């Protein structure tokens, strides 16, 4: 299995919506994808529209049996993900 990674930029908000959607749609269209990794190490800024986009991805992925993993978030970013209870929705490592 090849690695399927979406590298999120420093500022993850509505401005990244188009690119994000295009990237995951392309990955979900491939047949052999079983896991998508969201590479979070750069993210410093995150807002609720980003969280919404992630939920949208999670729902689409789940219907195709693809799991989503969040990797390498910084402490402050992790805090926001935890406040949103995303640790129950995603595998965060």
């Amino acid at each position, binding site marked *: 299995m090849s690695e399927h990674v979406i590298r999120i930029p420093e500022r993850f*908000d509505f401005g990244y919506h188009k690119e994000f959607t295009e990237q995951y749609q392309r990955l979900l269209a491939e047949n052999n994808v079983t896991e998508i990794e969201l590479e979070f*190490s750069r993210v410093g800024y995150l807002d609720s529209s980003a969280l*919404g986009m992630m*939920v949208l991805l999670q729902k689409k992925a789940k219907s195709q049996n693809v799991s989503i993993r969040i990797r390498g978030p910084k*402490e*402050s970013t992790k805090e926001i993900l935890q*406040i949103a209870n995303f640790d*129950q929705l995603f595998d965060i490592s």
Partner: protein
Amino acid sequence: MRILIIEDSSLFAEILETFLISKQCETKISSSLQAAKDQLIISSFEFILLDNHLPDGNGIDILPFIKSLSCKVPVMMVTAEDNQALMSEAFEKGVDDFLVKPISVDLLWQKIQRCRRLYDQSEVVNLQTQELENLLNQRKQEENLARYVYEYTTASLSHNTQYVDTYIQSSSSFNGDAFICNTAPNGNLFAILADATGHGLAAAISILPLASTIKAMIRKGFSLAHIIHEANKKLNIELPDNKFVAIIGIEINFNKRELQLFNGGMPDVILLKTDHSLERYSSRSMALGILEPEVFDPKIVVVSLEAISNLFFFSDGLIEQQNIAGKPFSMHRLLETLKRYDYKESLVSCVVNEFTVFNGMAELLDDLSICDLQIKSLIDSHVYNKPKLIAANKGKITVTLEIEGGLIASTDVVGYLDGIMRSADMVGDLRQRAFTVFAELINNGIDHGILNLDSKLKNDFSGFFEYLRLKKARLTELGPDDKLSMKFAFCPNTAQIDFEIIDSGQGFDMNKDNSVCIDGLSGRGMDLVKKLCKTVDIVAPGNKIIVNLKSNR
């Protein structure tokens, strides 16, 4: 060729002249020393034929005058005297050749050509020597300038920090290794060692701009991951493909008692534990400047500070250096040295001593850097030296901001506020939380206040896109009555932010149903704001919100 014939016998002079003209030469005849001098002053010649018996003296006596001319001319004596003493004196005074009368004109011509050729060649050599000297001078000047910039920049890279030991030795006058050590606004200590491909000036040039960028980013409070990403991006753009920079980055967080470690293309970082065991951290990423920013993935390791006494790292110049016998210093030898370390002297001088004995007089092949962070001592000193930042009265910054009409749709207000927070030296965690809060409140004000969009739309996929479509459409219709006003205040002493936002909308009841379904597509915003802020006041009818944020630290 222009030839001066100094000859008092008009018959002989004419013979010479006729012959030389037949060889496409231009000639001038002077029948006395004085006439020759006059001729040499007013015009220049490429060859001189000189008789010794002249009415006003010996031909040999004019030689010093000829040699003093700015233009160097070969001189051949043509005389009836077959006198060895005279020949010898003539050569001493600088004559280039000698011919005894009666002469063979063919021999004369061969000698003239040969002499002239030698002069031409030496002229070329002289010119080249001159050019070379100019180039060397220029190079020296350029090197001096580069040295000045280099020394100025590197001197300011690393503050003399207690318990951080380094040893840096260059293989030439410029160093392709750089060590940066500085404390971030949040109190974290950064230590970064970079090694550019090659050595000397070429390597130094690759590393200088990078070093300044890293230094500035540490001061502005960026995280290690961010700095590494930015450095890679910069080098990817600025360096040619065959050049890159290997780097070790360490960020020590004293509050959380852990450190972050990045190793991209450098030798293993070695941890010395308090139980005298060693732990190695190998490079897990590519060196910087190779991968495109989109595919670069810094694999940063988090290590607990507990039970660590020292953190030792170095550039490959150390282990790859070969002694006179052609043997490298090697990782093995280094590890043996570290295992034997008895904490009596500094670790750096212990390794340097071992290395110096091993290397003997062998010339250094590459730049060599050795660093030791005395973790245990650093932690202890951190406990007693609380950052001075809190003690000083830093004042307060307040910004009021009002936007109306179409600019509401196009202005990056959050980015602007972030810029202010950065310039006020606000620590990272508070700034990032504030960013989220501002983004929520501003979006809320625009979407539900000014644009009057119903968030219920966002409950399913199709509604979500309908919502976005409507938002886009309504943003194009903004008029002068649509307004967004904000007030931002930050006080470093209390590490608190007050933020107030009013939109020109009708207001809505934000308290009415804030139960967020965990996997709902929306409705998370206000919940996030409430959890990130110390206080949140929604002022009736709901178009004004006042919040207060405080740093966790």
